[in-house]
């Protein structure tokens, strides 16, 4: 399976891109070229050079180091947000499928519709207006909108499985709905969940960047790509490298994850529709 994946150029490119940033984030726990919480104003606006590989920002901090730690922030927020979405969404979806047509199903599905009806960014803004801006609140805001995505996906996939023979025989054998869902349904929709997880992960990184950009994500001194972009905005006309590098980091990470997701989708199910909604 893994070998097959790496035979697909999209997957390989995506994997290399995504892993670069994951690696950068991991390394940043032990080492960065310069500390990111020390301000060195006289050294500001350095262009990329041998000491500061990507230059320095408006407070004289090393941009390369900031990007490394920023990767940590982005990835952490996105991973936890996807975790919330899966952790709550999948059980809800499976429960709805197991009790298709029941009041429970109705409530879960209408609840999903309701969450979907709220403009995501707006709700994130409101959440941070209530609880104050922080990485944790960004995670919650992004995570909430992942719940209906996974709930719908797993319900849909589970519904078709419930009519299959192996589930029927499990029922005949006297297994309850919970056991069937856990032992027979879940393993069979895992592929789908991984694909969707990759895609939500990339959307999470975009969402974190957008929230930080309007000042609602991780707070200083924790570097974040979105906030680096926001800080650089007025300076882009005379120090474009401040805006280019964090933006490129976002694009490459998201691109990598999307390429991986698409390739995995093709791999798991060649018949599945390409093109995402």
């Amino acid at each position, binding site marked *: 399976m893994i070998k097959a994946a790496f035979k697909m150029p999209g997957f390989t490119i995506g994997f290399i891109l995504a892993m670069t940033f994951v690696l950068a984030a991991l390394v940043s726990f032990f080492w960065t070229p310069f500390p990111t*919480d*020390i*301000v060195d*104003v*006289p050294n*500001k606006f350095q262009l990329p050079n041998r000491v500061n590989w990507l230059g320095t920002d*408006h*407070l*004289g901090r090393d941009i390369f180091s900031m990007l490394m730690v920023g990767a940590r922030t982005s990835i952490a927020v996105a991973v936890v947000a996807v975790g919330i979405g899966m952790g709550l969404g999948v059980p809800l979806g499976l429960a709805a499928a197991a009790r298709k047509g029941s009041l429970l199903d109705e409530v879960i599905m209408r609840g999903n519709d309701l969450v979907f009806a709220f403009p995501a960014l707006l709700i994130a803004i409101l959440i941070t*207006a209530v609880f*104050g*801006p*922080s990485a944790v609140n960004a995670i919650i805001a992004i995570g909430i909108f992942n719940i209906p995505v996974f709930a719908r996906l797993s319900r849909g996939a589970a519904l078709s499985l419930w009519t299959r023979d192996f589930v029927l025989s499990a029922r005949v054998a006297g297994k309850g709905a919970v056991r069937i869902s856990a032992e027979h349904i879940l393993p069979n929709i895992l592929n789908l969940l991984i694909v969707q997880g990759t895609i939500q992960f990339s959307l999470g990184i975009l969402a974190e960047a957008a929230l930080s950009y309007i*000042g609602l994500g991780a*707070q*200083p*001194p924790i570097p974040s790509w979105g906030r680096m972009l926001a*800080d650089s*905005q*007025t*300076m*882009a*006309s*005379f120090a474009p490298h401040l805006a280019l590098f964090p933006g490129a980091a976002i694009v490459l990470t998201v691109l990598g994850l999307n390429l991986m997701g698409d390739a995995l989708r093709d791999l798991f199910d060649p018949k599945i529709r390409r093109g995402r909604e």
Partner: protein
Amino acid sequence: MKRIFLGASVLALTASMAMAQSTHINIGDQLEPPHLDPTAGAAGAIDNVVYANIYEGLTRFSADGDVIAGLAESWDISEDGLTYTFNLRSGVKYHDGSDMTASDVVYSLNRARAEDSTNAQKGLFAGIADVTAADDTTVVVTLTSENGGFLFNMAWGDAIILNEGDDVEALKSQPNGTGAFTFTNWVQGDSINLARNENYWGTPAILETVTIKYISDPTAAFAAMMAGDIDAFPTFPAPENLPQFDADPRFTVIIGSTEGETILATNNKMPPFDNPLVRKALSHAIDRSAIIDGAMFGYGTPIGSHFAPHNPAYIDLTGESNYDPELARALLAEAGYPDGFTTTLKLPPPTYARRGGEIIAAQLRAVGIETEVTNLEWGSWLEEVFRGYDFGLTIVSHTEPMDFGVYADPEYYFQYDSAEYQALMEELTAETDPDRRIALMQDAQRMMAADDVNVYLFQLAKTGVANKNIVGLWENSPTQATDLTAVYWSE
């Protein structure tokens, strides 16, 4: 019918803009006012539109901050300093055609000091015992006690004279003043238009029409200036772009002073900041020049107390809290915090606070003080910090002129409670001799610095940008205002 009328006025407006550039100006401002009644709101954005342009008070501020005659031509002060007799100008008309008389003054002052008043600076009127109209052009104001700052108080935008009988709710969207400009219309979310008042009592304005455009985003403001969509931005929001304007022959950069003392405010009642040694350590841990350079790109004057450097009574006390991290660490150890401590740093939206906050957090970390930084909107800041006292440190610029009086209020958010200072302020209020007043204000500065109430960072600079052919904009900002009455195009 309404539609046709509207269309015609817009047509006329665009036509006048196209015909004569030299009589129209596009002013840029960052914040749109919530409404246009300066007697019912603190938003500086309101005064930026209406002060001196649309509304006038008994006295007013001149460009250099002096208090000069406004709607009152002259005044007499009784021997005991308790009775002010204002002689009003005659022939002053409101924009709707009605006459400005003594009863309007009585009405306006009584409304501002009334029990149910929603005036944001109600304190300005607190010392008034009685206001009466002696005749149509004479107003007598009696004070409860001597107040050396009374004429100064009457110059504020919150003390403008409204027309008695106007519906105050309607004034919020349709102001009716006596000034050199009349209000034309307000495209909410975009711009406010003014036109010259042809029946003005004084020297008429030179400009015929004015558009004040609201651009909150600094990058967009930069682009709008560069493209010539805006002729002047009296307070340009991004100091980092000023060198680019300076290098461009089309523009002049106008750097002046404001009344904004920018401070790292300290919660004086909250441990460990209730310990004077800790506050002293703070003040030595902060490098003002790095903050001015890093956050304001060099625009700003260091201050050593809560007092504006351009004021004649100013004394330079920055030396008392010079940057000395070693001393700061020693003071912290003496106070019982050899390993420092952790506190909160809550930052309101302006750039000086957000960028300054990052630098201050780094400087404090260097002496062992860890800060949890939270960026807040103004609404949350007012609730948490200002009213809730829920903060360790915060950065804010106090933009009201001569506002060191707030240090006498122990309930004010940083909660400085000094009986000595409070007595000093009472003495100052009662004092009318100018030299004695200066001496007392200098005592106040020394006291604020010696007690390290807050860390005094810098005086906010007024960083304006304008087309080089525009003459007459205020260089300094003695009060929040964009006085356009004397502005003109030199070519």
